[in-house]
């Protein structure tokens, strides 16, 4: 079996940072936002745009679900919807920015030779 969560060995804080926060977390965000959006679509009373929204949520990962929750969700409380999206973005983009800062600078022109 592949190593747990695809982590390289040795498993260090840096590996956890990059694989868990930058690789796995977006999948979780996609699943969370899409699930909530589809639940809301199923429970809303009007049928207007339901199919189009559903397609957007599923076929445009992350952006579709976040867009729907921020602008069109009906049954969830607004504060909850915004908290879900904003906090999700925060816990993803902050580690992403720090990760890019850590790994993106010059390491030497033959860093992977």
């Amino acid at each position, binding site marked *: 079996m*592949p190593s747990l969560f695809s982590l390289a060995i040795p498993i260090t804080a840096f*590996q956890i940072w990059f694989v868990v926060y930058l690789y796995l977390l977006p999948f979780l965000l996609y699943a969370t936002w899409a699930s909530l959006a589809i639940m809301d679509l199923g429970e809303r009373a009007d049928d207007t745009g339901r199919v189009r929204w559903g397609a957007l949520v599923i076929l445009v990962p992350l952006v579709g679900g976040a867009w729907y929750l921020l602008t069109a969700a009906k049954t969830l409380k607004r504060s909850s919807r915004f908290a879900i999206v904003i906090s999700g*973005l925060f816990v993803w983009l902050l580690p992403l920015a720090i990760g890019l*800062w850590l790994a993106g600078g010059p390491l*030497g022109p033959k860093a992977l*030779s």
Partner: protein
Amino acid sequence: MSQSARLVGCSAKFVMCSLWLALALGGCGKSEVKPTGTVLVSMADNSYSPAIVHVPVGGSVVFINAGRNDHNAFAVDKSWSSEKAFGNIKMRPDDMSEIVFPKEGIYPFYCSFHATPDGKAGMVGVVIVGNVEYTPPGSRGILAAVESATGVTRRVPQDYPTIQNGVDAANPGDLVLIDKGEYTESVFVTTPSITLRGVDRNAVVLDGKFELGTGIMVGGNGVAIENMTARNYTLNGFYWTAVRGFRGSYLTAYNNGDYGIYAFGSTDGLFEHSYASGSPDSAFYVGQCAPCRVVLNDVIGEYSGLGYSGTNSSGDMYIVNSRFTHNRSGISTSTFDIELSPPGRDTTIIGNVISDSGLDDEAAGFYATETLAGNGIALVGTHNNHVERNYVVRSRNNGIVVVPILDRHYWPSTGHVIRNNTVLGSGRADLAAGGFGTIGNCFSANVYRSSLPWGLEALNGCGKLRLPVASDLSSDMTFFGAIAQIRAGRFTVSDYRTRPTPLAQVNIPGGADARVIPAVHVFADLKLDLDAIKTPHEASQKPLAKL
């Protein structure tokens, strides 16, 4: 504006700011002048590597201080210097400076701390820009390579006190025969078609004492080096640069500070029956050639950062019947913009044993090799390699991994054929592919137990319908994680100077009396039969040289 709209606006700004921050911190979007071709020159203590470089008109040379001392580079004619480009006369360790060469010509250069200002002694080098004929200093003009031996033998030290004296006296086709002994010298060969041979591979030892740069550097076509050892050089053991026709046979190179046995910008060559260990970069390296027409056959690379490394080495490049064990990483083919002729492509890797990659701390290494540590075979940003019938076992991370690379350009890794390999015992995955654009690769008939992404071989078989499950990003993320860790200084490598001495190695058949064959049309004479090579097993190959 409603509260909802303001919140949406704020959210959008937050996302945009975060992305901008990520891009800014990541160094994206920087504008720079794009040279037409770039070559890297390392500054060691105290010599340049490579010391002779060719770049096209408009190309550039990137100097990087890979030593422990301060260095620089000044043109002898004062037309350029690293001081002007870098802004300081001292380039400290890891500093880089890029010089662009807009005009054709020959530009000798020197380090003002470690050479004479006329560029004739000490830490010196030459940049050749464009198609200019160049005669290395100390040579006797431009001599033609010859196809047959003259029968003349020049003995060291009986006839000439040093190897360099013997080499300087030799004519094309001569044999320079070196007697048993320890030779503390750095030899530069410019005469074509000569053969340097030791009478005993294990008793003819060039020793750099960790002060000299390279054991033997060859700048002449058709030169063969046979049956000797080079150790303890700050750069390379044996090194051919910008030549056509070369051969290294029955050589041993250990505990050298960059590469063991090395060809750069050279074509039509062969490394055979040779051993290299204890190099922090790679035991064997072939760089910047297209088409290479180079073969590594029956070589052993151990206890190094990489067993074999090939950067931008393309076309008729073969690694066969060889053994790469106990390295930080076994075999790497890679693409970099920092050498000419990217991308690396068309390398054939057949019938090799690659084992114990990244599993112990006995291997030498340096920061760059740690990014790939733990991989048996890594195809990094290269195209159209054939990896077949290899035995790849006990890799700390991936047995065979295909990933792209981001240098000045983004180089996806595509078109590889990976089949009939035995790949087992890998810590992360036996077969792995990662990154955007990692498409067009196929995997078939490999003996393996795990892959990332799952179903890699089942969905990307050779000659079958391939589904778009070619790669995921987890392999890239592990590399980025390794890079971040290295940038944070959280890694340890073993010092090449303290690696143990290998056991005695086999001598050339015939010894001093072996037939003298100048290294001309080497590739054409080989007549490789790739179909006859079978998948090796550990027990069927010669035992590991125990350190």
